[in-house]
């Protein structure tokens, strides 16, 4: 039952806290992604789980056992590296059967196990080739097979797709989840790519500067993020500055900098509070009436057009229009924008300012 539990895990390098009191519980068979920008501590955290690093403080529990002092090779964890790390002097089959070989299984069984997992990742025909003869996607698949062949029930993926082309990434993403779920493994996946995180995970933990921002399902984080950083990091969003002006029948009225008002679902803030409205581009619509804005430029996105406008309230607002209508919008044009009331989320105005609060680097 490889359940993973992290209790107040901290990693300090001198004064720097690379990981700051992180708590996390992962249920058996769950696929959890740790998502965050570079330097947020996600790689440090996954290396702590694997035993590559020993935390300064805190406890790591895997399968009901505390892992302090337990060396890497005894933790029974499969690890896939960002830079793949296939052994260059061994062919694919020898790479994949390394785990069984280390356990001193009979040679025929070693080969059997290797073949089973290579078939799973659809690389059986490349068994005799060497890593240098494979392309990026194939190498990563072989690396996955190798980690799986140890029979470990916990799989750790350290930015497994970052080194691959966009196209290959998209294809491999779906494969990854399919295989892992078919085998019933618990998975911890680390990445900076929010689209990747959302498409493969049961749950996502968002990290920033060593600490946890929030945890939730992909849908929760996308539609109802609790923190303004998450709102901006997981998917794109428009951020409008304003103040609460009134409340009536399940709606709140927010006044923006130029006096325009936006209606949102009841947000729980008091009148006069300084707030920020977060609303995603797909929930902003040009209408006959609404927030006056001027189009800055229009970009073709293939199946839709992205229009970037500057509102009279000095907020940058982006919205999408279907491909057919795109040509209607041009630079300098005036539009009126309304917002889907239910899709907007309201946050208290961050003390350090919006730019600081959502900063990505």
């Amino acid at each position, binding site marked *: 039952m490889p359940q993973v539990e992290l209790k107040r895990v901290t990693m300090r390098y001198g004064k720097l806290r690379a990981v700051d009191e992180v708590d996390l519980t992962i249920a058996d068979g769950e696929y959890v992604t740790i998502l965050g920008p570079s330097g947020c501590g996600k790689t440090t955290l996954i290396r702590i789980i694997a035993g590559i690093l020993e935390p300064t403080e805190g406890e790591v529990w895997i399968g009901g056992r505390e892992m302090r002092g337990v*060396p890497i090779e005894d933790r029974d964890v499969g690890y896939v590296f960002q830079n793949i790390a296939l052994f260059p002097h061994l062919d694919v089959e020898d790479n994949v059967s390394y785990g069984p070989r280390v356990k001193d299984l009979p040679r025929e069984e070693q080969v059997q196990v290797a073949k089973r997992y290579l078939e799973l990742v659809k690389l059986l025909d490349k068994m005799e080739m060497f890593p240098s003869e494979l392309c990026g996607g194939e190498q990563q698949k072989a690396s996955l097979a190798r980690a799986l062949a140890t029979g470990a029930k916990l799989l750790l993926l350290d930015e497994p797709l970052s080194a691959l082309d966009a196209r290959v990434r998209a294809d491999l993403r779906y494969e990854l989840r399919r295989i892992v779920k078919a085998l019933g493994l618990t998975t911890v996946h680390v990445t900076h790519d929010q689209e990747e995180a959302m498409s493969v995970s049961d749950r996502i933990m968002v990290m920033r500067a060593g600490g946890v921002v929030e945890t939730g399902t992909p849908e929760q984080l996308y539609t109802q993020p609790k923190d303004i950083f998450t709102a901006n990091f997981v998917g794109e969003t428009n951020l409008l500055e304003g103040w609460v002006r009134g409340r009536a029948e399940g709606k709140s009225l927010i006044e923006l900098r130029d006096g325009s008002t936006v209606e949102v679902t009841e947000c729980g803030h008091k009148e006069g509070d300084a707030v920020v409205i977060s609303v995603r581009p797909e929930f902003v619509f040009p209408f006959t009436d609404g927030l006056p804005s001027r189009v800055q430029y229009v970009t073709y996105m293939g199946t839709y057009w992205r229009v970037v406008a500057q509102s009279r309230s000095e907020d940058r607002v982006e919205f999408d229009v279907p491909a057919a209508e795109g040509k209607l919008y041009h630079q300098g044009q005036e539009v009126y924008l309304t917002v889907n009331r239910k899709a907007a989320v309201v946050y208290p105005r961050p003390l350090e300012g919006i730019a600081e609060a959502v900063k990505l680097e």
Partner: protein
Amino acid sequence: MRWLEKATELISRRRFRKGWLAFIIFFFLVFVIIPTVFVLSYAFTNWGDIQSTVLNDPAEMQKIWTAIGNSFEIAGIVTLVDFLVGMPMAWMLVRKKFRGKEFLDTIIDMPLAVPTAALGFSAAIFWGITPADLTNPLGLNIIGSPFLLIILLHIVFSYPYMVRSLSAILEQIDETYETAGRTLGASKLTVARTITLPLFRAGLVTGIILCFARSLSETGGTVVALTTVGAQKLFYTAPTLIDEVKKNSITNPALIPELSFISIILIVLALALLAVMAIIVKRAHLPIRKIWPRPEKILSRGLAPKAKDFSSILFLSFIVLIPSFFIFTYVLTATPSQPMNWGMFGEALLYSFIVAGVVTVIDLALGVPLALYIARGRSKRLPETLDILVNVPLIVPTVALGYSLGLFWVGGQPVNGAVGIVLVMLAHIAFTYPLMVRSVTGAVEEVDPVYEETARTLGAKPVQAFRRVLYPVISSSILAGAIMAFTRSLGETGATRAVVEGANTAPNFIVNLVQAHDYYSAALACIVLIVISYAFMLALRYMVRKRRRD
């Protein structure tokens, strides 16, 4: 700065660059390679002489083969021991973090600072059974066999070579492979055995070759050690035999064919053996697929690794360091038999310094460009060939090199004075030039060419790109190469004596003192030489460390 612009413009033109390159390669071939192997041609021109004087003299042939056999056996054993003991040390230095690591790092290079003639004396009075007037109460004096004594001596100065080579390779192997192995369930020992060691193989060849060749070459220390224990007529290595024959050939020119013969055999065997070794190491299959999980895990944890590390340090101290510096105790306990001729020693020091200085400057001026050409010309035939050729003077035993070079330039005639010093310089250039080239080539290869390329697209001419972008990064390696060349030249005995018998270098001075049984003066001279060389070594470490920290 008009002329500087014009000069930059001129040397950036393609024709000039091609001409300069041609000159560099010409220098390399004519001043380094050809003189080194010239003696081989003697086999064709004077085969008759060789046949009559040497091949038909069974007693002499016996002596020759025994000497050569001794040399190769010693080199083989030394290399093997160095590998077995150097490997754990290299691992400690590269993969582990502990207090005092920098200190350990510095001490390992210490024997390199000691000129081998001095080392020979120091090791002999520590290990060997010496005549009564030499016996030091602190020495172990347990080794009676000259064979064993020389082995112990050679280990002292080849150990740093091996450790450094192994460390360099280990640093280049990505630690991620080892981590990956461990996540797959392998203990540290299993990972080292099945993953690191096979990846090692390519670079291992270089380490073995350098170590082997260094032992094969060594003359000064061996001569001194054998003389000190009184075995110089009983036991010969190929270099000491050549040394003796060369000395005798000044009065008896009929010995020249024999001299050439020994040199030729030595060179041919060395090159052949090393080629074979290279092939074996590259192809050899480590057939042990089997893994014993439990015993290997036990050996990877707790007491076993600590014992391994401890014994590595013990070995370093007793077999390498203490013998190196034992000479200091001698000076403190013994009494001088004659007053030290400081005047002559001063002259010898000056001579050595001038030679080393000029040699280093030439190595810099003409070696760095060749290194750049080789490093940036990978995958083209000429640079690859030059890369292989550069190693030849390192493999050829320096005493044979010296003789061959003497044969090339002055037909083996004894020379003196100005011509003598020039010859000595040419000989020293031959075996220090590769050191410089290898050091710089290694450094340049580690620098991504993208930096210079970016500089060129920003408008920099090649020489500007070198000066502003590449040079700052490799300057410490250039310095390291220079200091290596300098100290190597300072400490060399064999080649010097082979090309100009009476050359007044400091090591030669020491050897002469020992052969005249004036041990106390020899020891004093050794100490002065050690202190000076060591000061240079420290400077090198400091510079390189400073650069690495930046």
